[in-house]
């Protein structure tokens, strides 16, 4: 693995971790908000944006790092 590839993967890993933390706390908030609360829609927007960013990051990975499609 080249130094550039390693740095690239470290960056992707770091961003995925940060997005996972955002999604985790969003899920925690969602558990505490009642159905029908306007806050729920806001939380869902956070989740959607973070999931979209995660999906984009996965597309940046090398073939060996691609998610398992089975």
């Amino acid at each position, binding site marked *: 693995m080249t130094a550039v590839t390693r740095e690239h993967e470290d960056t992707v*890993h770091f961003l*995925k*971790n*940060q*997005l*996972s*933390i955002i*999604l*985790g*706390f969003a*899920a*925690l908030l969602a*558990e505490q908000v009642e159905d029908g609360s306007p806050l729920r829609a806001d939380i869902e927007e956070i989740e959607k944006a*973070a999931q979209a960013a*995660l999906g984009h990051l996965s597309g940046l990975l090398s073939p*060996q*790092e*691609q*998610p*398992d499609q*089975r």
Partner: protein
Amino acid sequence: MRTRSVVTTESDSRTALTRVLVVDDLEGNRQLIRRLLPASEFFVDATGDPEEALAIAVSAPPDVILMDIRMPQRNGFDLCRQLKGSETTRLIPIILVTANRQSQDRLRAIEAGADEFIAKPLNPVELRARLRALSRVKRYTDELDNAEQVIVSLALTIEARDEYTDGHCQRLARYATAMGEALHMSDAELRALQRGGYLHDVGKIAIPDAILTKPGPLTPSEMEVMKSHPVVGERLCGQLRTLAAVRPIVRHHHERRDGSGYPDGLGGDEIPLLAEIIGLVDVFDALTSARPYRAALSLEATAQALREEVARGWRRREFVELLLDLAYRSGWCSGADATIADTT
């Protein structure tokens, strides 16, 4: 770096909680997991330092370890392998957590001995469910482990009743596993030999002191009582699944290849191999240890006695020769300086 979500000096109040050790280099992840696990159900200990995690796993074993795979100091696969390879920590369930979902990470997690694999982002409901399931398994294993410890303690207590058998169990476990290793036996067989060394005579709990420690030969009726110990011992181990491989050793370690042994009079290859090994090292240790009615035999005299048992058809020749070879090379003979005395 290490933080706890519940601070209390009342250790009793934590016994009902599921104790989780979180190992993750990112404070954000540690914080998140603490928040995802309600304090009413979980006691969370968290560290970002893999070496500290090892120390905690030994000093205050958790019910479950939740560990990140990719950490700067040391990766989770290595740490998991080390924990699963150690006798003191191998039964602690480990969940490996990763931000990557690739199949090779899952395979490496299985190879490292992990019990579960979870991908980030963490689903709170799934995380709690998996922790609950694994902690139930851990507590069940702890109960079995405790029961086994009780049986082993019982066996050591029996040994302590007779001053002439001090250290006998430890020596048998050592001699038997050395023979098993020389015979290229599996890890499971070696574990059975180790346990068999400690437990083979556990049934002697039912033998009165007057017979067990009698300073002289037993009468025929006393011998009948003494001969009941393998059957009693097997019954004691019978309810423990972890001791399933040890039961045949306990029951059959007094059988002889010509069928003249007890309790079932098994002959030749009917005798379980592990029982035959324990039976042989049991006699070896008895001969090389002092008894109330005779001194310990030298290795030469012991070798002669064991070869006579081969000639009578009681023992397997290759096992006797292997044991003697190991004994000469390793210097096993507690009575090496003793004079040759009567072997009966």
